[in-house]
């Protein structure tokens, strides 16, 4: 059923995680169902927005796509190959083709390594040649000076760190990138810069991108299609323009209404 140009094809995806808060003194913690049967196609070259509140399962969905988690049900196909239950060794060649940018650039960049080493690392792992040139190229792409290679993450501003995170992800020339809440921790002025960088890269490199965010404004800025998640289920899945013009689900409308626009006369407030 996978379409010709579909990069990711997900059907009936379920993920359950142990609930440590409810763990009895003896025995295993009960499982809580985080994702309850998600169906999803991500076409090559598209930008998918995944939006929802906390506890909606949006980050879990992202991590399952990249197989940082193992699903408890359903299947995930990447470029036609079933990766649902592959082990880490079998996943390694595929890992080069899918990369991730993390929410908190401070915790996702190893604080004891320099920026150059952080970007070069995945390249070394996958035995690329001309590593120095590739690192320079990646820094150029995200608009950071090459001199930043010798800096440590804590010497950079939040926006710069996040651009290092992007540089590391694109250095491998992946086909797919998952961006998990990558601007929510940044000041608004850096947010705009990071989004611009990402937007240009998607166009330049023909990337397929899944962009997870709680912020509909950011989603609208970047995405072609939007999936609204609520408590592990799809509340609405539509093209961006249609979603914003005429939201179908009550949950989507609630999310939209709740966003405080910089306008003292906004309705429903």
């Amino acid at each position, binding site marked *: 059923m996978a379409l010709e140009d579909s990069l990711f094809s997900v059907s009936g995806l379920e993920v359950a995680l142990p609930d440590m808060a409810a763990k009895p003194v003896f025995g295993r913690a009960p499982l809580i169902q985080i994702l309850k049967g998600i169906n999803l196609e991500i076409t090559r070259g598209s930008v998918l927005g995944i939006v929802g509140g906390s506890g909606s399962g949006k980050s879990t969905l992202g991590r399952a796509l990249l197989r940082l988690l193992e699903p408890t049900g359903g299947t995930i196909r990447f470029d036609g190959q079933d990766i649902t239950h592959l082990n880490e060794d079998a996943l390694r060649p595929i890992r080069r083709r899918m990369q991730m940018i993390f929410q908190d650039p401070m915790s996702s960049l190893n604080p004891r390594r320099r920026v150059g080493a952080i970007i070069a690392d995945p390249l070394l792992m996958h035995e690329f040649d001309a590593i120095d040139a590739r690192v320079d190229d990646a820094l150029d792409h995200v608009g950071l000076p090459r001199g930043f290679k010798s800096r440590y993450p804590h010497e950079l501003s939040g926006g710069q760190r996040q651009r290092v995170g992007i540089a590391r992800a694109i250095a491998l020339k992946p086909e797919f990138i998952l961006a998990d809440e990558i601007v929510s921790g940044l000041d*608004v002025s850096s947010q*705009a810069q990071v989004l611009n960088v990402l937007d240009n890269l998607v166009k330049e490199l023909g990337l397929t991108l899944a962009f997870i965010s709680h912020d509909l404004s950011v989603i609208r*800025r970047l995405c072609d299609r939007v999936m609204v998640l609520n408590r592990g289920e799809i509340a609405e899945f539509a093209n961006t323009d249609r979603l914003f013009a005429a939201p179908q689900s009550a949950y989507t409308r609630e999310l939209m209404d709740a966003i405080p626009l910089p306008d*003292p006369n906004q309705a429903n407030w």
Partner: protein
Amino acid sequence: MSAFLTVDNLSASIRGNIRQRVLRSVSFSIDTGEVLGLVGESGAGKSMIGKAILGILPSAVEVVEGEIQLDGHNLMAMKQADRRRLIGATAALIPQDPLTALNPSRRIEPQITNRLVDILGWSKRDARLRALELLDEVHIDNPERVMGSYPHELSGGMRQRVLIASAFAANPKLVVADEPTTALDVTVQKQILRLIRELQTRHETAMVFVTHDLGVVSKVCQRLSVLYGGMVVESSDVPAFFGGPGHAYSRALLAATPKYTDPEASLLPVDEAVIAQVSGEVLAADEGWRHGA
């Protein structure tokens, strides 16, 4: 009759290095029943101002110049103990992180009533009745049950309601809200902002509302001050500001703020030239301050 809270020419520096100012001659005033927004990006010093008013600055920072007048009293001229007592009786804080602001090993009830009993000398019974009334006022359905709960048993939104109830417990005349909704989901944020506005209006509280989000400012504040590098860049009435800010930095900040309704005019990067201009103004202010001092 002067304003309820007046901050006049307030400067704070890194302790031991007076030249290293974190607040640069900040002035503003708030009347009873009025909400002032302090807006800025990280490092702008907005939280520092709230802390200076409440006398809870970190030990590495000290006030080096300026005055704070609270309800007719000059805080800077008072003895430490008197100042604490005055602030305890007239002011309250709504903190940013509802998780760390509540003591995880104590039930909710004493965390609301302690201040009433210990500092204001209420009887335990009165304090308990007041706490129940307050939890009801912040729209908590089952106040009795929540009073007996531990913080980890409540959701983030619920905890923030408890903190708001606790802030308004002693009928404060001034409330400092320090990014009170940053840690919350948008839908919960909306409820909490409405709640704060409702209580503030009903009790005619003067309020300092610290936030990085201009959207939030437009919902709860009547006036705002935009900060950069510890300096007030622009002060304005809210309707006038959102009609068109006066300062280039404010304009850039507003243009960078997300607006899903208008993708073309939101999330615009801040121009380097604007940053250079406002940084220049801060340096010039420092220059003048050194000559003056």
